[in-house]
């Protein structure tokens, strides 16, 4: 021990050598995400006559390693809006906190959401899904323009100004689009064709009931588990309707059948 307080509790130079300051850089070029690290795979969602069904599996992968198996990638914003996150999990957590602070600020002015139970609008929030999607698109576009993207593709599900079901996507570049059914990542290849058979256009949404919509999503989750190597058979599913959000975060894929597997030829060591 010497008489210099700043040296107390530090590795001694005479034992460990001088501290290499290059490991702790406070200056130098500004760093930003160049690739996602812990990632979630597909998010899929479909509109039906009274709302939206949205699902993700509960896996967060570290490259090809199935790293975290209870990660909830559907995040509820308010009573009638929910977001599904694909891509980087840490960026998702940042956005989740951002949305929480937004929700709290929104609540300042409208704490009376339960005040008028004679009115049927008790579930209507000051920010609906459409508003939130616009907000998210600005956040994402701003971050990409700063060359510091939030590495996600996000589906926003809920209701629009016209109180019709709303479903839209925004990604790390700020690109936005809306469609009767949407899927991110692998789901865009595997699930979207299945969902488009059910809702080929906006008009067909009005003819789709909740049960069919939920079943379509569950079927798609199964297909994704069969063919997406970064997926898992535990998943979350949410049904957004005027009555609120029915979010189940601990679903298991039922009735799996791997009978198709032995008909697959030409992969790996199997050549005949």
């Amino acid at each position: 021990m010497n008489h210099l307080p700043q040296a107390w509790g530090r590795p001694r130079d005479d034992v460990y050598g001088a501290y290499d300051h290059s490991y702790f850089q406070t200056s130098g070029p500004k760093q930003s995400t160049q690739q996602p690290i812990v990632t979630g795979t597909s998010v899929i969602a479909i509109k039906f006559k009274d709302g939206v069904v949205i699902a993700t599996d509960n896996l967060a992968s570290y490259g090809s390693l199935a790293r975290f198996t209870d990660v909830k990638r559907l995040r509820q914003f308010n009573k009638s809006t929910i977001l599904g996150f694909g891509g980087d999990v840490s960026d998702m957590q940042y956005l989740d906190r951002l949305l929480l602070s937004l929700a709290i600020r929104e609540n300042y002015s409208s704490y009376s959401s339960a005040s008028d139970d004679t009115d049927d609008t008790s579930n209507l929030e000051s920010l609906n899904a459409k508003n939130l999607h616009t907000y998210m698109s600005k956040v994402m576009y701003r971050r990409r323009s700063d060359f510091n993207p939030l590495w996600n593709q996000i589906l926003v599900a809920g209701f629009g100004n016209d109180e019709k079901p709303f479903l839209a996507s925004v990604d790390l570049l700020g690109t936005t689009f809306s469609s009767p059914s949407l899927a991110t990542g692998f789901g865009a290849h595997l699930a979207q064709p299945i969902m488009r058979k059910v809702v080929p256009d906006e008009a067909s949404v009005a003819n789709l009931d909740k049960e069919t919509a939920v079943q379509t999503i569950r079927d798609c989750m199964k297909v994704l588990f069969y063919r997406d190597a970064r997926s898992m058979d535990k998943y979350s599913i949410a049904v957004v309707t005027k009555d609120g959000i029915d979010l189940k975060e601990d679903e298991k894929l039922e009735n799996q059948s791997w009978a198709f597997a032995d008909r697959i030829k030409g992969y790996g060591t199997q050549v005949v």
Partner: protein
Amino acid sequence: MASVFTAPPLADNGPGYSFKQTPTTHISADGTRQHSFYPYTDNGGSTLGISGADFTILAGDTRSTSGYNINSRYVPKLFKIGGEGPEHTGSSIVLSVVGFAADGDALKERLDTVVKMYKYQHGKNMSVAACAQRLSHILYNKRFFPYYVHAILGGLDEEGKGALYSYDPVGSYEREQCRAAGAAASLIMPFLDNQVNYKNQYIPASGYGHDLQPRKAELLPRNTVEELVRDAFDSAVERHIEVGDGLQMMIITKDGIEEVYSPLKKD
């Protein structure tokens, strides 16, 4: 112009399909790989504009793509500028953007705000010529990190004639009779040259060899132009995978903006 989208932005000798995602992994000579974030993508689609004596027509398909995927079958590329409220009441200028859709949306919102502010400050609507100039400045100001879009602006000039302006991503612009932009620009533009400006059309038996008289271009009537637009897109859909799903048309006349949607092939 179209080569901006069809050629890869970084030095790369691969084939230049517009739907090809730009590689973001750079491999140096010593074998180290560096990932980097590339802030652009191409969302495909095509737009076109033709002006007439007392109208301007802008059109665009409504497909949005990323790579071989269709994001959505209905994402408009045409925007009314400077109108009031969600229905854009009172607007008389239309902007079409094709290329990177997020930049397109940002550009649309910037221009819309500018045109609205002009109205609030000066108490009159902005002329198309002024709006065109302003759009050029917006694009040029961001020339070192451009809006990756090919914009076409349409309206009626101060004499009531159809006015059409086309832009490159960094703000170079020109008033034209007609212009096609986007993925199928290279397919549609020659067709328009021939059918709108009568390029390579000659008056039969007006002379031999170099004496043959070219057919003189004239302002086309509205229904002819609408047919040309439909034909152009129907043909583009056949030959370009990024074009299809729906055709959105906006016809600007002295009575305002008329919007027409018609389906295109979804394959």
